[in-house]
């Protein structure tokens, strides 16, 4: 068992082991090499087989689709003729995630800065712990809380938004109904991605070289100016990658959305109206009652989500790679 090896002693580098030439060392080396290589290959095989499975099942469904896969505003693979399209799901997924990011990222950066630069040490540690704890709550619990507490309590704020910001079109509420809308989903998702964005940003802000900050202070900068001149530029790429991690979670969130949203196949710019849908929510809601073909159709929508997530991750990497040279952090 691993527990018999001393933990405090750092493992010797493989080169040293080879030079030492002991038999057991060499065998262990080989085994470890095999294991790690195997794990790496396994991961690639897994990803490839997921992609192949999704593509195969999706192609079965899409070839029999009588509607347009990208522009049909309906999901009825059991109908006659069978039609389904991802337009509404793509819209709902992106809109709810964007709302979540717009709310969560500024708040998360604020919390992270407070913990890393403002809070007294006695307060910082427990606060960081509480924020991390938010991530430990299962998403179905967020969903139930959202449906039973958040939705009824948002009715007042929704009326207020409608009354004073209805002119923006976005906040005009044209349909009656409780707040089971994309906007509410966005708020809920914001709470759910808050801990990951906060804790990664906090780690990055803590890594800002002490010298930079002290130099700024020596030049007579106030605390806010220190943050603006040295902490934020240094941490920018870290915050971006933290946000992308959060975005990934928001895009794929299933149970919380399915519990809160009142799904319908309509695209509406009025964010407060009940209705809309997201990829993951639609799969969770429709899978039980779907027949073989309906499941293939849902898998096709899953493939689109898969590609969307890949694109988001790729974009994040690009941004980080481009900014790497300007800062020391590359999380």
């Amino acid at each position, binding site marked *: 068992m691993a527990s018999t090896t001393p933990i405090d002693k750092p493992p010797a580098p493989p080169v040293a082991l080879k030079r030492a030439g002991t038999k057991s060392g060499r065998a262990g080396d080989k085994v470890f090499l095999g294991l790690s290589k195997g794990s790496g290959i396994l991961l690639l095989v897994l990803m490839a087989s997921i992609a192949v499975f999704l593509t195969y099942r999706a192609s079965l469904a899409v070839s029999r689709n009588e509607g347009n896969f990208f522009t049909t505003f309906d999901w009825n693979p059991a109908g006659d003729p069978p039609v389904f399209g991802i337009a509404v799901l793509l819209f709902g997924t992106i809109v709810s995630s964007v709302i979540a990011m717009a709310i969560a990222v500024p708040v998360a950066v604020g919390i992270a800065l407070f913990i890393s630069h403002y809070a007294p040490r006695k307060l910082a540690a427990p606060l960081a712990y509480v924020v991390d704890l938010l991530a430990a709550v299962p998403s179905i619990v967020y969903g139930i809380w959202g449906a039973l507490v958040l939705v009824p309590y948002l009715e007042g704020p929704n009326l207020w938004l409608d009354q004073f910001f209805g002119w923006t079109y976005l906040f005009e509420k044209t349909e009656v109904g409780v707040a089971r809308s994309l906007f509410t989903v966005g708020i809920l998702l914001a709470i759910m991605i808050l801990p990951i964005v906060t804790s990664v940003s906090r780690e990055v802000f803590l890594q800002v070289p002490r010298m930079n900050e002290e130099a700024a202070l020596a030049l007579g900068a106030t605390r806010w100016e220190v943050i603006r001149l040295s902490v934020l530029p240094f941490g920018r790429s870290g915050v971006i990658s933290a946000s992308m991690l959060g975005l990934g979670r928001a895009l794929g969130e299933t149970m919380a959305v399915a519990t809160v949203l009142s799904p319908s196949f309509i695209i509406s710019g009025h964010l407060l109206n009940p209705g809309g849908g997201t990829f993951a929510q639609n799969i969770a809601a429709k899978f039980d*009652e*779907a027949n073989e073909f309906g499941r293939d159709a849902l898998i096709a929508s899953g493939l689109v989500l898969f590609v969307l997530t890949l694109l988001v991750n790729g974009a994040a990497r690009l941004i980080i790679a481009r900014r790497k040279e300007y800062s020391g952090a590359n999380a």
Partner: protein
Amino acid sequence: MKLQRKNLLRATALGALAVSGALVLTACGSDDNSGGTTGGNGGKTSAASNIKCDDAKGQLPASGSSAQKNAMDLWAKNYMAGCSGVEINYKSSSSGEGIVAFNQGTVGFAGSDSALKPEEVADSKKICKGGQGINLPMVGGPIAIGFHLEGVDSLTLDAPTLAKIFDGKIKKWNDPAIAKLNSGAKLPDKAIQAFHRSEDSGTTQNLGKYLGAAAPSDWKYEAEKKWPAPGGQAASGSSGVAAQVKQVDGSIGYFELSYATSQSISTVDINTGGAAPVKATPENASKAIAAAKIKGTGKDLALDLDYTTKAEGAYPIVLVTYEIVCDKGNKAETLPTVKSFLNYTASDEGQKLLTEAGYAPIPTEINAKVREAIASLS
């Protein structure tokens, strides 16, 4: 010192794991044992009740409609208590899935909220050697229209008004059409929030059939499992719709009666054009099912429900769940169990249990034919 403590912790964790693992293992073991020891005692009539076990033995896999789940659970429990060595395994999924499983030959019988379609019957001939799949009406149930309106405890609606509400044509509770049917009630000037099922559902389809038949000029949608009308709000499952209606003031929705009774949600009385508005109760649903005609031929007992019935006390929004079996060519190993189990569910004792679970028994006349059909299964 630090290291030792870590090892101690790890050892404790390992120990805990081993203990819980052993517990799980023994739990599985005891299950297997009871199955093994009682396996040979099948085929005896139980003394406790009138269940005839005949040659029933082994496992009976079945699958289908979730609308009859509670009834099936109750029946299976009683039946297995009476006939040891038999295991009725009803997987409650959906009507569609039940029929697919039946036509693949993986289940002894399927449960469905609607009768087999012609192409499904054609498919079933591959599995039923020399015969075909038939529908046996076994469980009836009223679909209640639940509402939540502060200050209003009872409400009467008719099919056209109901259709307009669910279609978004009537938007306020004090609409003249509603007021006309409820003289004396104080209807508030409040928006109506109509809730429907977000996933495909036999309940939706049966409500659609009713609205299409009883209010053809106000409900022009096909009766499909998917909610057809635009607007309104969606919730997942009957339980989800009931929860929303319970929570939201000014709401209306549809679900099986049991959800309304268990959460004390007020239900709409239906004005069928008969003498008095009809309440949603199991007895009243049975009366409406009694007005149905059998449209199936031979042993097939598919029903043609009369949604426009004006018979006194007949609640017209009903749902009938069929058990689907082969008339000939059932699998030899499950046939005795299927016959014995369905005999029990169609018996007076079995049908009486339905009322307890919020369902409606199948009327005597139709039930007699169901029993005949079961007896002749081969």
